């Protein structure tokens, strides 16, 4: 019914959250279908793919709608279309890009970890529904310009992820990961909420646009409360993107949670977290750039250095990817020190990295058989001989994450570095290029194992959706490395309001 209405009568307001509605309803449908018809998991997979496609279609529609709005001369129509629902959410290119990225990551993530969903049996439907819900939550988070709305999205997304982390009930490691994630995540959420309260105390506004106009019209003589509040918002979100020193959950969760879903969990949380972070800092507090840019630069430095160093000494590929994810959070933050101008570079990096991340965890999931359990680097030994295609793809993905030229990772790194350089953070760029070299070192360890050491172990054949996703992500890594212009042009629109 609602679908039909949206389709016949393109009410601008509904369109702004149509993808989220599609996913929410979709999650309910998946669960109902499961209870009613007990379909095989493959069918449910098809259904989920259709739901994601519908949401994707809505998002594309939104993209063109934003184009229309931007060229519209009618001011009232512009405001109504741009900031529907009483200025709680925003319909701009940045939010649509976040949706597209999240939907893509969800589709790829489910494909990459397909083995897990098959193994879960009847509970596969729950996992699928949770993925849809988490995606809708992070979408909402990315498109909100109101701190309460943002918190709502954050919680919807995070709680779904906590459950997903423990979805293989009965496995101690999985339970441990879920509890850890939940406890630390709750603390982070609490810090975020406290930050919201302090920002409200400082500006009298929960709306980011309201806060901005307040700050532009007022000289804050005693900004301590506001600054602490802002810092707490940053800390809360830094937890979500696993930036140091708020990253301690990541290795345990990445290692303990079922391998098939970790890629999606990590990628979705990163996209949502960064989207919100850009939104808060750039939309809400552009006038305080000089205050928050050093904070961001400090977190970025810590993340790159600590992430890199700890990744060097990991023996488990999942922990390695977790710490490398901390380093990547640092690299992405590097692109934010210049404020909104860096948003396109941040988005390009996020898109490229999350695609690689999902692909890489697809490979890990194949090796781990889709579930929890250790995946030591040694278990990759000789993979180059046993499964050449899988090994080549993994090597490409790892090289892409390392930022070797001719891969998308290099273009992404260059993008954030040049933004930071332009913003006057030359020292940060120097730290970052050196941290990239550390990155080469730990990614190479996995490649050494795959190609230069002999392994006696066997590894399971990937399921066909996983194989497709892994091949796709590896191809994207190369193609975007050679021809980055289309995606860069797309991301160039994504400067938030």
């Amino acid at each position, binding site marked *: 019914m609602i679908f039909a209405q949206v389709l016949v009568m393109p009410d601008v307001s509904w369109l702004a959250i149509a993808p989220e509605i599609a996913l929410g309803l979709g999650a309910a449908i998946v669960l109902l279908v499961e209870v009613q018809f007990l379909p095989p998991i493959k069918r449910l997979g098809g259904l989920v793919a259709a739901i994601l496609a519908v949401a994707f279609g809505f998002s594309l529609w939104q993209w063109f709608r934003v184009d229309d709005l931007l060229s519209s001369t009618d001011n009232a129509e512009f405001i109504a279309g741009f900031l529907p629902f009483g200025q709680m959410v925003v319909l701009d290119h940045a939010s649509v890009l976040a949706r597209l990225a999240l939907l893509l990551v969800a589709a790829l993530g489910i494909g990459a970890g397909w083995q897990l969903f098959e193994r879960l049996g009847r509970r596969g439907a729950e996992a699928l529904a949770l993925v849809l819900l988490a995606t809708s939550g992070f979408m909402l988070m990315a498109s909100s310009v109101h701190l309460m709305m943002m918190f709502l999205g954050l919680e919807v997304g995070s709680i779904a992820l906590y459950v997903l982390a423990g979805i293989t009930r009965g496995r101690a490691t999985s339970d441990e990961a879920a509890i850890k994630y939940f406890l630390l995540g709750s603390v982070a959420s609490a810090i975020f909420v406290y930050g919201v309260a302090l920002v409200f105390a400082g500006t009298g506004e929960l709306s980011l646009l309201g806060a901005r106009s307040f700050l532009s019209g007022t000289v804050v003589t005693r900004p301590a409360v506001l600054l602490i509040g802002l810092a707490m918002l940053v800390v809360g979100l830094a937890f979500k993107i696993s930036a140091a020193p708020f990253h301690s959950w990541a290795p345990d969760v990445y290692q303990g949670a079922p391998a098939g879903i970790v890629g999606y969990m990590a990628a979705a949380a990163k996209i949502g977290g960064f989207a919100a972070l850009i939104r808060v800092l750039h939309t809400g507090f552009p006038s305080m750039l000089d205050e928050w840019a050093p904070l961001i630069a400090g977190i970025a430095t810590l993340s790159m250095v600590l992430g890199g160093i700890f990744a060097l000494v990991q023996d488990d590929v999942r922990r390695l990817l977790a710490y490398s994810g901390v380093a990547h959070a640092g690299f992405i933050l590097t692109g934010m020190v210049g404020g909104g101008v860096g948003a396109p570079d941040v988005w390009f990096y996020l898109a490229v990295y999350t695609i690689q991340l999902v692909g890489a965890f697809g490979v890990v999931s194949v090796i781990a058989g889709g579930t929890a359990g250790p995946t030591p680097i040694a278990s990759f030994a000789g993979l180059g*001989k046993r499964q050449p295609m899988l090994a080549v793809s993994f090597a490409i993905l790892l*090289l892409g994450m390392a930022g*070797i*030229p*001719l891969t998308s990772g*290099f273009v992404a790194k*260059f*993008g954030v*570095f*040049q933004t930071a*350089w*332009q913003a006057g953070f*030359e020292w940060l*760029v*120097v730290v970052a*290029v*050196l941290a*990239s*070299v550390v990155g*080469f*070192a730990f990614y*190479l360890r996995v490649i*050494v194992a795959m*190609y*230069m*050491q002999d392994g006696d172990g066997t590894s399971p054949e990937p399921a066909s959706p996983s194989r497709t996703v892994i091949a796709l992500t590896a191809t994207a890594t190369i193609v975007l490395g050679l021809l*980055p*212009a289309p995606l*860069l042009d797309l991301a*160039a629109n994504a400067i938030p309001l």
Partner: protein
Amino acid sequence: MLTWLIAAPALAALVVAFLPKDRKELYLPVGILLSFVPLAVAGVVFFEFQGGEAAFQFAERVAWYQPWGIEWNVGIDGISLGMIVLTTILFPISLAASTAINHRVKEFVVSVLFLEAGLIGTFLALDLFLFFVFFEAILIPMYFIIGIWGSERRIYAAVKFFIYTAFGSALMFAGIIALAFLHAEQTGAPSFAYQDLLGLDLGVVDERLLFAAFGLAFAIKVPMFPLHTWLPDAHVEAPTAGSVLLAGVMLKLGTYGLLRFNLGLFPEASVDAVPIMATLAVIGIVYGAVVAIVQPDLKKLVAYSSVSHLGFIVLGTFALTSAGLQGAVIQNVNHGLTTGALFLLVGMIYERRHTKNIADFGGLWKVMPIYSGMFLFAAFASIGLPGLNGFVGEFLVLVGTYASLPGFAIVAASGVVLAAIYMLWAYERVFTGIPDKPENQALSDMSGREIAIMVPLVALILVLGMYPQVLLEKTEASTEAVLDRIEAVTDYEVPAPGRLTDLYIAGGDG
């Protein structure tokens, strides 16, 4: 044309990659055959190249990503011409010398061909971003070549090689970004094009920092003393083709980079850095030679001799005279040929005896006369015997250096003497005397294939030794242009007999 020169080996690699799995015997022959395509293209470029012109020829410029000012910007001048020819010649030879590779042949051929594409790209790229892309991307195939097909300590050597060089280039990357933004500050739009960046006004501090950032990357690549420690490991562990390409071409990226980018973009800082660079170069010449003397391992000996020979190239570059630069450019090619030949020969004996220890041999000339003759020829070329190519390059370097830095030239000349000592002493121990060890008595001499591999190198060594003008007349205009620019933008003046206009130095016979 140049785009195809870069694309040809990459496409060849793809062709080999998609050869059917059950036709293993095809991989290497197809790879060798296809590697003649870039050689042919390079030949056309070489003969069409206009000698008297300093500007970039066959230039192509297309925007890659406009907002960042990144371009597909390639071109060739006298400085890169010789390197392109050398690269395209050495690749078919290295592949043909790789019949001993017996596992994962397909991956090997693919890696080598991708390496060729990357190396050609590095020499042709005029956009600094593009240059860096190639400069860094070639580490991957070389890493695999050392790490998969190397000898016992291959993984250690491969990782050391990779991290060392990647670390060196990291700061250069920051420097490249800095240059682009300096360009943006001064003209409004960022640019990475070498041609555009020449016009920048850098300021003393920035220029020195940038010189250091670029210089570090190239100095590690060369490698200059004291940054050379990765080289012996990489060389000793690499398979023959890897050593040939590493010494023959990859090290030249360092000397090429110093000449093209450090001298070209940072003239003021280059002039100021002459004492440091020349000192390190001379230390490298003497140190490399002295260490080579005491090496018990034949391959390591050749590797350390490279440190010494490349010292000459750096010295010639920073002598900042016509003869010095000319010598550096031609010695880049010469060293590729002679050291390539030596590594190939060491590889051949290793395939027979599975040892490179000098002490394990003795009296080989009785059992392997052709091989011994070839080795003697290559050793003489390396020492710098007049009439062979090594003489031309080192003589030009020494003459050029004497004009501006006489003290350095005198010390550097000892490198030539030391070269004679380590080469001839090693030759004496390996080849002369009677073959008293039973393993050595039954060794077969060079096969027809092995002779065929060596013939082109021997011929080029002779040609460049007898008639170096073939190359020099094409490089002259470009090296002169470098000096013209240095004299134009700095207070530096090349001391009296240092310019071609002061005194014409005929290449070959001195």
